[in-house]
Protein backbone atom coordinates (compact mmCIF):
# COMPACT_ATOMS: atom_id res chain seq x y z
CA UNK A 1 0.00 0.00 0.00
CA UNK A 2 1.51 3.32 -1.00
CA UNK A 3 2.31 5.67 1.81
CA UNK A 4 0.06 8.69 1.94
CA UNK A 5 2.12 11.82 2.00
CA UNK A 6 0.44 14.68 3.76
CA UNK A 7 0.12 17.54 1.31
CA UNK A 8 0.43 21.08 2.54
CA UNK A 9 -2.94 22.79 2.82
CA UNK A 10 -3.79 24.83 -0.28
CA UNK A 11 -3.77 28.54 0.27
CA UNK A 12 -7.21 30.09 0.62
CA UNK A 13 -8.51 31.83 -2.51
CA UNK A 14 -7.83 35.37 -1.35
CA UNK A 15 -4.21 34.75 -0.64
CA UNK A 16 -3.36 34.00 -4.27
CA UNK A 17 -1.30 36.79 -5.72
CA UNK A 18 -2.69 38.10 -9.02
CA UNK A 19 0.73 39.27 -10.11
CA UNK A 20 2.10 35.73 -10.23
CA UNK A 21 3.26 35.32 -13.85
CA UNK A 22 1.48 31.96 -14.00
CA UNK A 23 -1.85 33.76 -13.68
CA UNK A 24 -0.94 36.02 -16.59
CA UNK A 25 -0.22 32.91 -18.63
CA UNK A 26 -3.54 31.40 -17.57
CA UNK A 27 -5.25 34.66 -18.50
CA UNK A 28 -3.69 34.52 -21.97
CA UNK A 29 -4.57 30.85 -22.34
CA UNK A 30 -8.21 31.46 -21.43
CA UNK A 31 -8.34 34.37 -23.87
CA UNK A 32 -6.71 32.40 -26.68
CA UNK A 33 -8.85 29.31 -26.26
CA UNK A 34 -12.20 30.73 -25.20
CA UNK A 35 -12.14 34.37 -26.28
CA UNK A 36 -12.92 35.50 -22.72
CA UNK A 37 -10.63 38.32 -21.70
CA UNK A 38 -9.75 39.52 -18.21
CA UNK A 39 -8.47 43.10 -18.11
CA UNK A 40 -5.52 43.87 -15.83
CA UNK A 41 -7.81 45.32 -13.19
CA UNK A 42 -10.13 42.29 -13.31
CA UNK A 43 -7.35 39.76 -12.98
CA UNK A 44 -8.28 39.18 -9.35
CA UNK A 45 -11.54 37.63 -10.56
CA UNK A 46 -9.66 35.07 -12.62
CA UNK A 47 -7.29 34.51 -9.72
CA UNK A 48 -10.11 33.66 -7.35
CA UNK A 49 -11.74 31.34 -9.89
CA UNK A 50 -8.40 29.56 -10.37
CA UNK A 51 -7.99 29.37 -6.61
CA UNK A 52 -11.25 27.43 -6.34
CA UNK A 53 -9.98 24.90 -8.86
CA UNK A 54 -6.63 24.77 -7.08
CA UNK A 55 -8.36 23.97 -3.81
CA UNK A 56 -10.30 21.20 -5.52
CA UNK A 57 -7.10 19.78 -6.99
CA UNK A 58 -5.17 20.38 -3.77
CA UNK A 59 -2.56 22.48 -5.54
CA UNK A 60 -0.61 25.23 -3.85
CA UNK A 61 1.08 27.16 -6.63
CA UNK A 62 -0.37 28.83 -9.72
CA UNK A 63 2.51 27.33 -11.71
CA UNK A 64 1.29 23.85 -10.83
CA UNK A 65 -2.20 24.75 -11.88
CA UNK A 66 -0.92 26.16 -15.17
CA UNK A 67 0.69 22.76 -15.72
CA UNK A 68 -2.68 21.09 -15.20
CA UNK A 69 -4.16 23.37 -17.84
CA UNK A 70 -1.42 22.93 -20.39
CA UNK A 71 0.59 19.72 -20.23
CA UNK A 72 -1.42 17.22 -18.20
CA UNK A 73 -3.46 14.63 -20.06
CA UNK A 74 -6.74 15.93 -18.69
CA UNK A 75 -6.02 19.54 -19.62
CA UNK A 76 -9.10 19.94 -21.83
CA UNK A 77 -11.38 18.75 -19.05
CA UNK A 78 -9.65 21.04 -16.57
CA UNK A 79 -9.98 24.05 -18.85
CA UNK A 80 -13.66 23.28 -19.14
CA UNK A 81 -13.99 23.18 -15.36
CA UNK A 82 -12.18 26.51 -15.10
CA UNK A 83 -14.45 28.07 -17.73
CA UNK A 84 -17.43 26.80 -15.73
CA UNK A 85 -16.04 28.62 -12.71
CA UNK A 86 -15.44 31.76 -14.75
CA UNK A 87 -18.98 31.93 -16.09
CA UNK A 88 -20.67 30.85 -12.88
CA UNK A 89 -23.00 33.47 -11.47
CA UNK A 90 -23.36 35.01 -14.91
CA UNK A 91 -26.93 33.84 -15.13
CA UNK A 92 -29.59 35.79 -13.36
CA UNK A 93 -32.46 37.70 -14.84
CA UNK A 94 -31.85 41.25 -16.00
CA UNK A 95 -28.14 40.58 -15.66
CA UNK A 96 -27.32 42.98 -18.52
CA UNK A 97 -29.56 46.04 -18.45
CA UNK A 98 -27.30 47.74 -21.02
CA UNK A 99 -28.26 45.06 -23.56
CA UNK A 100 -31.95 45.70 -22.97
CA UNK A 101 -31.34 49.45 -23.26
CA UNK A 102 -29.59 48.92 -26.58
CA UNK A 103 -32.54 46.82 -27.75
CA UNK A 104 -35.10 49.38 -26.64
CA UNK A 105 -33.36 52.51 -27.83
CA UNK A 106 -31.47 51.47 -30.94
CA UNK A 107 -31.87 47.93 -32.18
CA UNK A 108 -35.63 47.45 -32.08
CA UNK A 109 -36.46 50.90 -33.51
CA UNK A 110 -33.97 50.20 -36.30
CA UNK A 111 -35.42 46.77 -37.09
CA UNK A 112 -39.03 47.90 -36.74
CA UNK A 113 -38.40 50.65 -39.23
CA UNK A 114 -36.72 48.37 -41.74
CA UNK A 115 -39.29 45.58 -41.40
CA UNK A 116 -42.32 47.85 -41.17
CA UNK A 117 -41.73 48.86 -44.77
CA UNK A 118 -42.50 45.33 -45.91
CA UNK A 119 -45.53 44.91 -43.69
CA UNK A 120 -44.05 41.91 -41.85
CA UNK A 121 -44.77 42.92 -38.30
CA UNK A 122 -43.15 39.96 -36.60
CA UNK A 123 -39.88 39.71 -34.71
CA UNK A 124 -37.84 36.59 -34.06
CA UNK A 125 -35.39 36.13 -31.21
CA UNK A 126 -33.17 33.19 -30.43
CA UNK A 127 -31.39 32.43 -27.19
CA UNK A 128 -28.81 29.87 -28.33
CA UNK A 129 -27.49 28.02 -25.30
CA UNK A 130 -30.18 29.24 -22.93
CA UNK A 131 -29.03 27.05 -20.03
CA UNK A 132 -31.65 27.18 -17.26
CA UNK A 133 -33.70 29.85 -18.99
CA UNK A 134 -32.91 33.09 -17.20
CA UNK A 135 -32.08 34.87 -20.44
CA UNK A 136 -35.18 33.96 -22.51
CA UNK A 137 -37.42 34.71 -19.52
CA UNK A 138 -35.79 38.12 -19.16
CA UNK A 139 -36.24 38.78 -22.86
CA UNK A 140 -39.87 37.67 -22.71
CA UNK A 141 -40.61 40.02 -19.81
CA UNK A 142 -38.84 42.85 -21.58
CA UNK A 143 -40.77 42.32 -24.81
CA UNK A 144 -44.11 41.91 -23.02
CA UNK A 145 -43.46 45.20 -21.22
CA UNK A 146 -42.86 46.87 -24.60
CA UNK A 147 -45.92 45.28 -26.20
CA UNK A 148 -48.15 48.30 -25.72
CA UNK A 149 -45.39 50.78 -26.42
CA UNK A 150 -42.56 50.17 -28.85
CA UNK A 151 -44.02 46.92 -30.14
CA UNK A 152 -47.64 48.02 -30.53
CA UNK A 153 -49.03 46.14 -33.54
CA UNK A 154 -46.13 43.70 -33.62
CA UNK A 155 -45.82 40.06 -32.63
CA UNK A 156 -42.68 38.28 -31.57
CA UNK A 157 -41.47 34.81 -30.83
CA UNK A 158 -38.58 33.60 -28.75
CA UNK A 159 -36.75 30.39 -29.47
CA UNK A 160 -34.64 29.15 -26.56
CA UNK A 161 -32.34 26.22 -27.17
CA UNK A 162 -29.75 24.24 -25.32
CA UNK A 163 -27.87 21.00 -25.75
CA UNK A 164 -28.26 19.87 -22.17
CA UNK A 165 -31.56 18.11 -21.40
CA UNK A 166 -31.37 18.82 -17.68
CA UNK A 167 -30.91 22.54 -18.31
CA UNK A 168 -33.77 22.56 -20.78
CA UNK A 169 -36.04 20.79 -18.33
CA UNK A 170 -35.24 23.38 -15.68
CA UNK A 171 -35.76 26.19 -18.20
CA UNK A 172 -39.16 24.78 -19.17
CA UNK A 173 -40.21 24.47 -15.54
CA UNK A 174 -39.23 28.11 -15.02
CA UNK A 175 -38.76 27.86 -11.26
CA UNK A 176 -36.28 30.32 -9.82
CA UNK A 177 -34.84 31.21 -6.46
CA UNK A 178 -33.69 34.49 -5.04
CA UNK A 179 -30.33 34.51 -6.82
CA UNK A 180 -31.90 34.29 -10.29
CA UNK A 181 -34.48 36.91 -9.34
CA UNK A 182 -32.15 39.30 -7.54
CA UNK A 183 -32.57 42.01 -10.19
CA UNK A 184 -36.23 41.38 -10.94
CA UNK A 185 -38.39 43.99 -9.25
CA UNK A 186 -41.58 43.28 -7.30
CA UNK A 187 -43.86 44.59 -10.01
CA UNK A 188 -42.45 42.16 -12.60
CA UNK A 189 -42.41 39.32 -10.07
CA UNK A 190 -46.10 39.86 -9.32
CA UNK A 191 -47.00 40.18 -12.99
CA UNK A 192 -45.09 37.26 -14.47
CA UNK A 193 -44.52 34.74 -11.67
CA UNK A 194 -46.47 32.66 -9.21
CA UNK A 195 -45.47 31.21 -5.88
CA UNK A 196 -43.74 27.83 -6.19
CA UNK A 197 -43.15 27.32 -2.47
CA UNK A 198 -39.79 26.95 -0.78
CA UNK A 199 -39.12 30.68 -1.36
CA UNK A 200 -39.19 30.12 -5.09
CA UNK A 201 -41.19 31.61 -7.91
CA UNK A 202 -42.38 29.99 -11.10
CA UNK A 203 -42.95 31.67 -14.46
CA UNK A 204 -46.70 32.00 -15.02
CA UNK A 205 -48.50 30.77 -18.14
CA UNK A 206 -48.40 34.17 -19.81
CA UNK A 207 -44.62 34.33 -19.53
CA UNK A 208 -44.07 30.68 -20.42
CA UNK A 209 -46.22 30.92 -23.51
CA UNK A 210 -43.84 33.46 -25.03
CA UNK A 211 -40.95 31.02 -25.26
CA UNK A 212 -40.48 27.96 -27.41
CA UNK A 213 -37.86 25.61 -25.98
CA UNK A 214 -35.99 23.15 -28.15
CA UNK A 215 -32.91 20.99 -27.99
CA UNK A 216 -30.37 22.14 -30.54
CA UNK A 217 -26.73 21.22 -30.79
CA UNK A 218 -24.97 24.23 -32.29
CA UNK A 219 -22.57 21.81 -33.96
CA UNK A 220 -25.43 20.14 -35.82
CA UNK A 221 -25.19 21.75 -39.26
CA UNK A 222 -28.50 20.35 -40.48
CA UNK A 223 -30.47 21.76 -37.60
CA UNK A 224 -28.60 25.05 -37.70
CA UNK A 225 -29.53 25.56 -41.35
CA UNK A 226 -33.22 25.56 -40.48
CA UNK A 227 -33.15 28.46 -38.06
CA UNK A 228 -33.93 31.26 -40.46
CA UNK A 229 -35.17 34.82 -40.26
CA UNK A 230 -33.80 35.71 -36.83
CA UNK A 231 -33.68 39.37 -35.86
CA UNK A 232 -31.56 39.06 -32.74
CA UNK A 233 -29.53 36.10 -31.47
CA UNK A 234 -28.16 35.81 -27.95
CA UNK A 235 -25.36 33.34 -27.42
CA UNK A 236 -23.66 34.15 -24.14
CA UNK A 237 -20.69 32.17 -22.88
CA UNK A 238 -21.43 29.18 -25.06
CA UNK A 239 -18.84 29.46 -27.81
CA UNK A 240 -16.10 29.75 -25.22
CA UNK A 241 -16.16 25.96 -24.98
CA UNK A 242 -15.73 25.47 -28.75
CA UNK A 243 -12.51 25.08 -30.64
CA UNK A 244 -11.70 27.69 -33.27
CA UNK A 245 -13.00 25.71 -36.25
CA UNK A 246 -16.36 24.92 -34.61
CA UNK A 247 -16.63 28.48 -33.36
CA UNK A 248 -16.17 29.79 -36.90
CA UNK A 249 -18.76 27.36 -38.19
CA UNK A 250 -21.35 28.39 -35.59
CA UNK A 251 -20.72 32.07 -36.23
CA UNK A 252 -21.19 31.52 -39.98
CA UNK A 253 -24.47 29.79 -39.23
CA UNK A 254 -25.58 32.65 -37.01
CA UNK A 255 -24.72 35.06 -39.79
CA UNK A 256 -27.03 33.29 -42.22
CA UNK A 257 -29.67 32.69 -39.53
CA UNK A 258 -29.95 36.46 -39.06
CA UNK A 259 -31.95 38.84 -41.21
CA UNK A 260 -29.85 41.59 -42.80
CA UNK A 261 -29.59 44.30 -40.13
CA UNK A 262 -29.87 41.70 -37.34
CA UNK A 263 -27.69 41.53 -34.23
CA UNK A 264 -25.77 38.90 -32.31
CA UNK A 265 -25.05 39.35 -28.60
CA UNK A 266 -22.27 37.37 -26.93
CA UNK A 267 -21.18 37.26 -23.28
CA UNK A 268 -19.88 40.63 -22.11
CA UNK A 269 -16.20 39.61 -22.02
CA UNK A 270 -16.33 37.38 -25.11
CA UNK A 271 -14.49 38.46 -28.21
CA UNK A 272 -14.79 37.27 -31.81
CA UNK A 273 -11.42 38.76 -32.65
CA UNK A 274 -9.74 36.67 -35.35
CA UNK A 275 -12.71 34.31 -35.28
CA UNK A 276 -14.93 36.21 -37.65
CA UNK A 277 -14.81 39.29 -39.81
CA UNK A 278 -18.20 39.19 -41.46
CA UNK A 279 -20.04 40.72 -38.50
CA UNK A 280 -19.45 44.38 -37.57
CA UNK A 281 -18.73 45.10 -33.92
CA UNK A 282 -21.06 47.85 -32.69
CA UNK A 283 -20.65 49.74 -29.43
CA UNK A 284 -23.83 50.71 -27.61
CA UNK A 285 -23.82 52.50 -24.29
CA UNK A 286 -22.30 49.99 -21.90
CA UNK A 287 -22.46 47.00 -24.22
CA UNK A 288 -21.36 45.66 -27.59
CA UNK A 289 -23.02 43.48 -30.21
CA UNK A 290 -22.23 42.06 -33.62
CA UNK A 291 -24.18 43.42 -36.54
CA UNK A 292 -25.06 41.84 -39.86
CA UNK A 293 -24.89 44.91 -42.06
CA UNK A 294 -27.52 45.00 -44.81
CA UNK A 295 -25.99 44.22 -48.18
CA UNK A 296 -26.92 47.63 -49.53
CA UNK A 297 -24.80 49.41 -46.95
CA UNK A 298 -21.71 50.95 -48.50
CA UNK A 299 -18.36 50.28 -46.84
CA UNK A 300 -17.85 53.05 -44.33
CA UNK A 301 -20.09 51.64 -41.71
CA UNK A 302 -23.23 52.46 -39.87
CA UNK A 303 -24.49 55.84 -38.96
Amino acid at each position, binding site marked *: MPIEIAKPKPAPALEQNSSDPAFLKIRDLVYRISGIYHA*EEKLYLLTSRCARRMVALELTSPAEYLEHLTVRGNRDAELRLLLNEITIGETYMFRHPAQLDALRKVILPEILQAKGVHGLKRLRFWCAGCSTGEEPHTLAMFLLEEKEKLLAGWTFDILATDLNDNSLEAARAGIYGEYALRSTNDRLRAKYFKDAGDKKLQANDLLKSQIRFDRINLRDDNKMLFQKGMDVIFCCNVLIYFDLASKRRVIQHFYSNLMPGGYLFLGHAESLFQVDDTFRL*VHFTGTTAYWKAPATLPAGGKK
Partner: protein
Amino acid sequence: MDSISTAPAILQPLLDMLRLPLEEIKIEKVVDLVSYDGAIAAQCLRLANSPLYGRREIETVRSAVMVLGLDRVRTLLLGLCMNRVIPADKWVIEPNAFWRHSLGCALVTQRMARKIEYHEPEKAYLAGLLHDIGLLVNSVLYTEGFRECLRIAAEQQAPLHVIEEQVLGFTHCDSGRMLAEHWRLSKELVDVTYCHYDLSLLAAPGPLACLVHLSDLLCRARYLGYGYDEIMSVDLGGDAAWQILVASYPALGNMDLVRFTLDIDGAMDQIVATVDSVFGSKNVAVSAAT
Protein backbone atom coordinates in the same frame (compact mmCIF):
# COMPACT_ATOMS: atom_id res chain seq x y z
CA MET B 1 -12.95 85.42 -25.21
CA ASP B 2 -11.07 88.04 -23.21
CA SER B 3 -12.66 87.10 -19.92
CA ILE B 4 -11.14 83.66 -20.11
CA SER B 5 -8.06 84.45 -22.09
CA THR B 6 -5.91 85.34 -19.12
CA ALA B 7 -4.48 81.91 -18.61
CA PRO B 8 -2.77 81.43 -15.23
CA ALA B 9 0.99 81.92 -15.38
CA ILE B 10 1.71 78.28 -14.76
CA LEU B 11 -0.46 77.05 -17.64
CA GLN B 12 2.20 77.21 -20.35
CA PRO B 13 4.95 75.45 -18.35
CA LEU B 14 2.32 72.94 -17.26
CA LEU B 15 1.29 72.20 -20.83
CA ASP B 16 4.95 71.77 -21.72
CA MET B 17 5.28 69.30 -18.89
CA LEU B 18 2.16 67.39 -19.94
CA ARG B 19 3.78 66.80 -23.31
CA LEU B 20 6.58 64.78 -21.71
CA PRO B 21 6.49 61.08 -20.90
CA LEU B 22 6.01 60.60 -17.15
CA GLU B 23 9.49 59.16 -16.71
CA GLU B 24 11.10 62.24 -18.23
CA ILE B 25 9.40 64.67 -15.90
CA LYS B 26 11.78 66.09 -13.34
CA ILE B 27 10.25 66.09 -9.92
CA GLU B 28 11.96 69.37 -9.01
CA LYS B 29 10.23 71.02 -11.93
CA VAL B 30 6.86 69.82 -10.68
CA VAL B 31 7.63 70.97 -7.14
CA ASP B 32 8.51 74.39 -8.57
CA LEU B 33 5.26 74.59 -10.46
CA VAL B 34 3.21 73.55 -7.46
CA SER B 35 5.04 75.92 -5.15
CA TYR B 36 4.58 78.84 -7.54
CA ASP B 37 0.99 79.22 -6.52
CA GLY B 38 0.10 79.25 -2.82
CA ALA B 39 -3.44 78.03 -3.34
CA ILE B 40 -2.29 75.13 -5.48
CA ALA B 41 0.44 74.19 -3.00
CA ALA B 42 -2.11 74.21 -0.19
CA GLN B 43 -4.46 72.00 -2.18
CA CYS B 44 -1.67 69.49 -2.84
CA LEU B 45 -0.80 69.34 0.85
CA ARG B 46 -4.43 68.95 1.81
CA LEU B 47 -4.90 66.08 -0.62
CA ALA B 48 -1.65 64.36 0.36
CA ASN B 49 -2.71 64.53 4.01
CA SER B 50 -6.18 63.17 3.32
CA PRO B 51 -7.13 59.69 4.55
CA LEU B 52 -6.93 58.47 0.95
CA TYR B 53 -3.17 58.58 1.18
CA GLY B 54 -2.77 57.12 4.62
CA ARG B 55 -2.93 60.11 6.97
CA ARG B 56 0.78 60.70 7.06
CA GLU B 57 2.15 64.01 8.24
CA ILE B 58 3.07 65.70 4.98
CA GLU B 59 4.55 69.13 5.46
CA THR B 60 6.51 69.94 2.34
CA VAL B 61 5.36 70.34 -1.23
CA ARG B 62 8.05 67.91 -2.30
CA SER B 63 6.79 65.08 -0.13
CA ALA B 64 3.22 65.90 -1.11
CA VAL B 65 4.20 65.48 -4.77
CA MET B 66 5.93 62.20 -3.94
CA VAL B 67 2.92 60.87 -2.06
CA LEU B 68 0.41 61.85 -4.72
CA GLY B 69 2.46 60.73 -7.69
CA LEU B 70 3.30 62.76 -10.78
CA ASP B 71 0.28 61.61 -12.71
CA ARG B 72 -2.15 62.81 -10.09
CA VAL B 73 -0.25 66.01 -9.46
CA ARG B 74 -0.27 67.10 -13.08
CA THR B 75 -3.98 66.37 -13.25
CA LEU B 76 -4.46 68.42 -10.12
CA LEU B 77 -2.43 71.27 -11.58
CA LEU B 78 -4.38 71.36 -14.79
CA GLY B 79 -7.65 71.08 -12.93
CA LEU B 80 -6.82 73.93 -10.61
CA CYS B 81 -5.62 76.02 -13.53
CA MET B 82 -8.94 75.53 -15.24
CA ASN B 83 -10.77 76.29 -12.03
CA ARG B 84 -8.88 79.57 -12.05
CA VAL B 85 -10.00 80.20 -15.61
CA ILE B 86 -13.61 79.27 -14.92
CA PRO B 87 -15.23 80.92 -11.90
CA ALA B 88 -17.04 78.41 -9.70
CA ASP B 89 -20.47 79.81 -10.53
CA LYS B 90 -19.83 79.48 -14.25
CA TRP B 91 -19.36 75.73 -14.38
CA VAL B 92 -22.39 74.61 -16.32
CA ILE B 93 -21.14 71.08 -16.87
CA GLU B 94 -20.47 69.28 -13.59
CA PRO B 95 -16.68 69.61 -13.05
CA ASN B 96 -16.43 66.00 -11.94
CA ALA B 97 -18.11 64.80 -15.14
CA PHE B 98 -15.95 67.09 -17.26
CA TRP B 99 -12.75 65.74 -15.72
CA ARG B 100 -13.86 62.14 -15.91
CA HIS B 101 -14.50 62.57 -19.60
CA SER B 102 -11.30 64.54 -20.23
CA LEU B 103 -9.04 62.24 -18.23
CA GLY B 104 -10.81 59.17 -19.57
CA CYS B 105 -10.30 60.37 -23.10
CA ALA B 106 -6.65 61.24 -22.34
CA LEU B 107 -6.00 57.73 -21.06
CA VAL B 108 -7.84 55.99 -23.88
CA THR B 109 -6.14 58.12 -26.53
CA GLN B 110 -2.76 57.35 -25.01
CA ARG B 111 -3.47 53.62 -24.80
CA MET B 112 -4.73 53.49 -28.34
CA ALA B 113 -1.68 55.48 -29.47
CA ARG B 114 0.57 52.88 -27.85
CA LYS B 115 -1.37 50.02 -29.42
CA ILE B 116 -0.96 51.41 -32.92
CA GLU B 117 2.66 52.41 -32.26
CA TYR B 118 2.07 56.12 -32.69
CA HIS B 119 5.39 57.78 -31.97
CA GLU B 120 4.23 60.28 -29.32
CA PRO B 121 1.78 58.63 -26.90
CA GLU B 122 2.24 61.44 -24.35
CA LYS B 123 1.15 63.97 -26.90
CA ALA B 124 -1.87 61.78 -27.49
CA TYR B 125 -2.57 61.95 -23.75
CA LEU B 126 -2.47 65.74 -23.84
CA ALA B 127 -4.68 65.86 -26.92
CA GLY B 128 -7.28 63.70 -25.18
CA LEU B 129 -7.06 65.80 -22.05
CA LEU B 130 -7.62 69.11 -23.82
CA HIS B 131 -9.99 68.14 -26.63
CA ASP B 132 -13.06 69.52 -24.88
CA ILE B 133 -11.79 72.87 -23.57
CA GLY B 134 -14.50 74.42 -25.71
CA LEU B 135 -16.99 73.22 -23.09
CA LEU B 136 -15.32 75.61 -20.64
CA VAL B 137 -15.55 78.50 -23.11
CA ASN B 138 -19.23 77.83 -23.60
CA SER B 139 -19.72 77.61 -19.83
CA VAL B 140 -18.21 81.04 -19.28
CA LEU B 141 -19.29 82.98 -22.34
CA TYR B 142 -22.65 81.42 -23.17
CA THR B 143 -23.67 80.23 -19.72
CA GLU B 144 -27.45 80.18 -20.10
CA GLY B 145 -27.55 78.92 -23.67
CA PHE B 146 -25.07 76.19 -22.87
CA ARG B 147 -27.02 75.18 -19.77
CA GLU B 148 -30.03 74.76 -22.03
CA CYS B 149 -27.96 72.65 -24.45
CA LEU B 150 -26.89 70.30 -21.68
CA ARG B 151 -30.42 70.02 -20.34
CA ILE B 152 -31.87 69.14 -23.76
CA ALA B 153 -29.01 66.80 -24.63
CA ALA B 154 -29.45 64.90 -21.34
CA GLU B 155 -33.21 64.77 -21.77
CA GLN B 156 -32.97 63.46 -25.35
CA GLN B 157 -29.84 61.40 -24.60
CA ALA B 158 -28.43 63.07 -27.70
CA PRO B 159 -24.87 64.03 -28.67
CA LEU B 160 -24.05 67.40 -27.13
CA HIS B 161 -22.58 68.98 -30.25
CA VAL B 162 -25.76 68.33 -32.22
CA ILE B 163 -27.83 70.19 -29.65
CA GLU B 164 -25.27 73.00 -29.44
CA GLU B 165 -25.52 73.45 -33.17
CA GLN B 166 -29.32 73.69 -32.90
CA VAL B 167 -29.49 75.96 -29.86
CA LEU B 168 -26.34 78.09 -30.10
CA GLY B 169 -25.60 77.83 -33.79
CA PHE B 170 -22.07 76.65 -33.04
CA THR B 171 -20.43 73.88 -31.02
CA HIS B 172 -17.81 73.62 -28.29
CA CYS B 173 -15.51 72.46 -31.08
CA ASP B 174 -15.71 75.93 -32.64
CA SER B 175 -15.14 77.69 -29.32
CA GLY B 176 -12.47 75.14 -28.35
CA ARG B 177 -10.54 75.97 -31.47
CA MET B 178 -10.64 79.69 -30.61
CA LEU B 179 -9.32 79.10 -27.11
CA ALA B 180 -6.67 76.67 -28.33
CA GLU B 181 -5.47 79.25 -30.86
CA HIS B 182 -5.56 81.97 -28.23
CA TRP B 183 -3.40 79.82 -25.95
CA ARG B 184 -1.09 79.19 -28.89
CA LEU B 185 -1.40 75.43 -28.65
CA SER B 186 0.18 73.51 -31.52
CA LYS B 187 -1.67 73.26 -34.83
CA GLU B 188 -2.33 69.57 -34.17
CA LEU B 189 -3.99 70.32 -30.83
CA VAL B 190 -6.03 73.12 -32.36
CA ASP B 191 -7.25 70.63 -34.96
CA VAL B 192 -8.14 68.12 -32.25
CA THR B 193 -10.32 70.60 -30.36
CA TYR B 194 -11.95 71.67 -33.61
CA CYS B 195 -12.72 68.42 -35.38
CA HIS B 196 -12.87 65.64 -32.79
CA TYR B 197 -16.57 65.21 -33.53
CA ASP B 198 -16.53 65.83 -37.24
CA LEU B 199 -13.32 64.92 -39.01
CA SER B 200 -14.69 66.09 -42.33
CA LEU B 201 -14.09 69.68 -41.15
CA LEU B 202 -10.46 69.13 -42.07
CA ALA B 203 -9.18 68.35 -45.53
CA ALA B 204 -6.65 65.87 -44.14
CA PRO B 205 -7.23 64.99 -40.47
CA GLY B 206 -4.00 63.97 -38.72
CA PRO B 207 -3.53 60.86 -36.57
CA LEU B 208 -4.05 62.77 -33.31
CA ALA B 209 -7.45 64.06 -34.38
CA CYS B 210 -8.42 60.55 -35.51
CA LEU B 211 -7.25 58.99 -32.24
CA VAL B 212 -9.15 61.50 -30.13
CA HIS B 213 -12.25 61.10 -32.28
CA LEU B 214 -12.32 57.35 -31.64
CA SER B 215 -11.41 57.66 -27.96
CA ASP B 216 -14.11 60.24 -27.40
CA LEU B 217 -16.71 57.88 -28.92
CA LEU B 218 -15.45 54.96 -26.85
CA CYS B 219 -15.48 56.96 -23.61
CA ARG B 220 -19.01 58.14 -24.24
CA ALA B 221 -20.06 54.54 -24.94
CA ARG B 222 -18.48 53.36 -21.68
CA TYR B 223 -20.16 55.77 -19.24
CA LEU B 224 -17.42 58.41 -19.38
CA GLY B 225 -19.49 61.00 -21.23
CA TYR B 226 -20.86 64.35 -20.15
CA GLY B 227 -22.70 63.15 -17.06
CA TYR B 228 -25.63 61.61 -18.92
CA ASP B 229 -26.00 58.37 -20.87
CA GLU B 230 -26.21 59.00 -24.57
CA ILE B 231 -28.01 56.72 -26.97
CA MET B 232 -25.04 55.37 -28.88
CA SER B 233 -24.60 52.97 -31.74
CA VAL B 234 -21.09 53.16 -33.07
CA ASP B 235 -19.31 51.01 -35.60
CA LEU B 236 -15.77 52.10 -34.76
CA GLY B 237 -14.19 49.82 -37.36
CA GLY B 238 -16.35 51.44 -40.03
CA ASP B 239 -15.59 54.99 -38.84
CA ALA B 240 -13.67 57.30 -41.17
CA ALA B 241 -11.08 57.93 -38.42
CA TRP B 242 -10.43 54.21 -38.18
CA GLN B 243 -9.95 53.93 -41.93
CA ILE B 244 -7.54 56.85 -42.00
CA LEU B 245 -5.52 55.53 -39.07
CA VAL B 246 -5.36 51.95 -40.25
CA ALA B 247 -3.86 53.09 -43.56
CA SER B 248 -0.82 54.57 -41.76
CA TYR B 249 -0.84 52.41 -38.63
CA PRO B 250 -1.61 48.83 -39.65
CA ALA B 251 -1.26 47.69 -36.02
CA LEU B 252 -4.74 49.13 -35.48
CA GLY B 253 -6.13 46.38 -37.68
CA ASN B 254 -4.73 43.83 -35.24
CA MET B 255 -6.39 45.39 -32.23
CA ASP B 256 -9.08 43.36 -30.49
CA LEU B 257 -11.62 46.09 -29.82
CA VAL B 258 -13.65 44.05 -27.35
CA ARG B 259 -10.52 43.41 -25.34
CA PHE B 260 -9.50 47.07 -25.57
CA THR B 261 -12.93 48.10 -24.35
CA LEU B 262 -12.67 45.76 -21.35
CA ASP B 263 -9.27 47.27 -20.58
CA ILE B 264 -10.85 50.72 -20.57
CA ASP B 265 -13.57 49.52 -18.23
CA GLY B 266 -10.88 48.21 -15.93
CA ALA B 267 -9.02 51.52 -15.99
CA MET B 268 -12.22 53.48 -15.48
CA ASP B 269 -12.34 52.79 -11.76
CA GLN B 270 -8.90 54.32 -11.53
CA ILE B 271 -9.96 57.38 -13.49
CA VAL B 272 -13.00 57.87 -11.32
CA ALA B 273 -10.90 57.49 -8.16
CA THR B 274 -8.35 60.02 -9.42
CA VAL B 275 -11.00 62.54 -10.35
CA ASP B 276 -12.81 62.05 -7.05
CA SER B 277 -9.61 62.49 -5.08
CA VAL B 278 -8.55 65.59 -6.98
CA PHE B 279 -11.86 67.32 -7.61
CA GLY B 280 -14.05 65.84 -4.90
CA SER B 281 -16.67 63.18 -5.48
CA LYS B 282 -19.83 64.73 -6.66
CA ASN B 283 -22.93 63.46 -8.22
CA VAL B 284 -22.06 63.67 -11.90
CA ALA B 285 -25.59 63.37 -13.16
CA VAL B 286 -26.73 66.47 -14.98
CA SER B 287 -29.59 68.00 -13.15
CA ALA B 288 -32.14 69.04 -15.70
CA ALA B 289 -33.59 71.60 -13.32
CA THR B 290 -30.51 73.71 -12.70
